[in-house]
């Protein structure tokens, strides 16, 4: 626990000592604005909710979170600091968790800074604040899932660009797993049980569940399992590379 916090604080320090966190946050806010107001038709819809705002989050995360995740391990491995870190008395899981939490906090900070849009919609009408709060929570959990995937891809690769592409690709697969275009292609030759399993793996389906304001335990559990599973995979990948 002590080591997890120490590593998390060190990573956070690095995010904010370099332009990384600021660039991420600014781009995230700008793109959110563009998507929500231009593409999402925030005003035109004439409804006091944040559906268009949250609707774009999966796609935004797909590349923005991949970008922040790609350096998680790949950079440390390349520069040799991974050796410095892992020869200190830390458990691998503490290092994995510490790094993940720091990045998750950065994404969470960016998400929190979108609060003006909540103020705007509250000013214009009477939104359901419970739904918005749930959506924020869901969005952050979803970001955690993408981040955990990215953590594993970054651990598997020394090259940050490869880590980015892998993360975006795997993230994309998980995002669209519940879409008809995936399910229809698989329909003919996969047993229905597997088909259902694939559909149940979809990030989008679970996020939309939460974003509707229904805090279903299964959706929460899904994201927690996704995060936990990919982080465990991260630790396994690092351990495997240690053995060579």
């Amino acid at each position, binding site marked *: 626990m002590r080591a997890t916090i120490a590593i998390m604080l060190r990573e956070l320090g690095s995010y904010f000592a370099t332009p990384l966190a600021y660039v991420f946050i600014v781009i995230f806010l700008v793109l959110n604005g563009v998507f929500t107001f231009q593409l999402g038709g925030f005003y035109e819809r004439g409804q006091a909710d944040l559906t268009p705002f949250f609707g774009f989050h999966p796609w935004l995360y797909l590349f923005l979170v991949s970008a922040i995740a790609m350096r998680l391990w790949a950079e440390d491995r390349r520069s040799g600091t991974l*050796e410095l870190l892992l*020869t200190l008395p830390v458990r691998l899981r503490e290092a994995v968790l510490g790094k993940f939490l720091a990045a998750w906090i950065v994404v969470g900070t960016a998400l929190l800074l979108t609060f003006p849009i909540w103020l705007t919609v509250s000013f214009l009408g009477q939104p359901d604040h419970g739904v918005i709060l749930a959506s924020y929570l869901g969005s952050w959990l979803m970001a955690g899932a993408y981040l955990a995937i990215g953590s594993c891809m970054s651990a598997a690769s020394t090259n940050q660009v490869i880590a980015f592409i892998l993360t975006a690709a795997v993230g994309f697969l998980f995002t669209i797993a519940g879409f008809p275009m995936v399910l229809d292609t698989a329909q003919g030759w996969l047993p229905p049980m597997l088909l259902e399993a694939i559909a149940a793996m979809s990030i989008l389906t679970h996020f939309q569940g939460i974003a509707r304001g229904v805090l279903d335990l299964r959706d929460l559990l899904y994201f927690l399992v996704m995060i936990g599973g990919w982080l465990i995979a991260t630790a396994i990948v690092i351990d495997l590379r240690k053995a060579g």
Partner: protein
Amino acid sequence: MIEVDHLSRHFGPVTAVDDLSFNVGAGEILGFLGPNGAGKTTTMKVIAGFLAPSSGGVRIGKHDVSRSPLAVKRLLGYLPEGAPAWPDMTPFGLLRFAARVRGMPVSLRDARMQQLITQLALEEVLLRPMESLSKGFRRRVGLSLALLHDPAVLILDEPTDGLDPNQKQQVRDLITSLSRDKIVIVSTHILEEVEAVCTRAVIIRRGRLVADATPDALAARSRWHGAIALRLDRPVQADVFAGIEGVDDLRSEDRNGQDWTLFVTRDAVGGPVIDRVRERLDAIGAPIREFWLHRGRLDEVFRELTLGPPAESA
């Protein structure tokens, strides 16, 4: 006590460390030598627990590195090759981070940090980002990280690389001043360093042990061991020395024939050869002005052991 026991490590088809065994006891400063690519760094990475052995193992004290890595890492101070550090962090931040990870109490941490900052002369760069520091400072920051918790076991991968001669001397003094009950392994390819600092030297070649002895014993294997260096009153020809028992080779050290080195056969080292030489020279009227005996040359032994056809294990 560090016990490296039949350690092997492969990277795909490449064997970096090949059935390597040696022990290091408390109070020893082991010089770990070998040409570049011989497997020094890999061995140190395995000892420090960063790489897992392919076969064999390493024990430090009563802990196996693979089985209880955390216990080993608490005992260990490790300077990785190239002294890596996060470029945006300051030496101060790095030391604080390492202390926090190690769970050092604040008072102890502050005392140790102050001590190391003075010892390694880090004061002026303490609050500057690592990426702006010179190679020498980076190396010394790496050393301070390894020494922070006053570890019982120190593994230093080329600690003096990139330092100027004064800084090299400081680091050597620091290593020799460590208390007597510590175990230190220093890899280097600077042979004077081994003679200046180490109580024992292990030489590896292509991942295999080729020598394990004190620096003096190693140097004694060279043909320079016991060789007689002469400076004469007047020049002489080489044939003056012909037929002196125990002298098996000679060479002139200057152009005119006043300075000579006489190589001595192994069994004649420490014997009365010098008296025979003196008699001979006195007889022709070219008395010795000064002379000394070579201890032997480590660099020559190193070359012999690490070049040419693979030698048998010693």
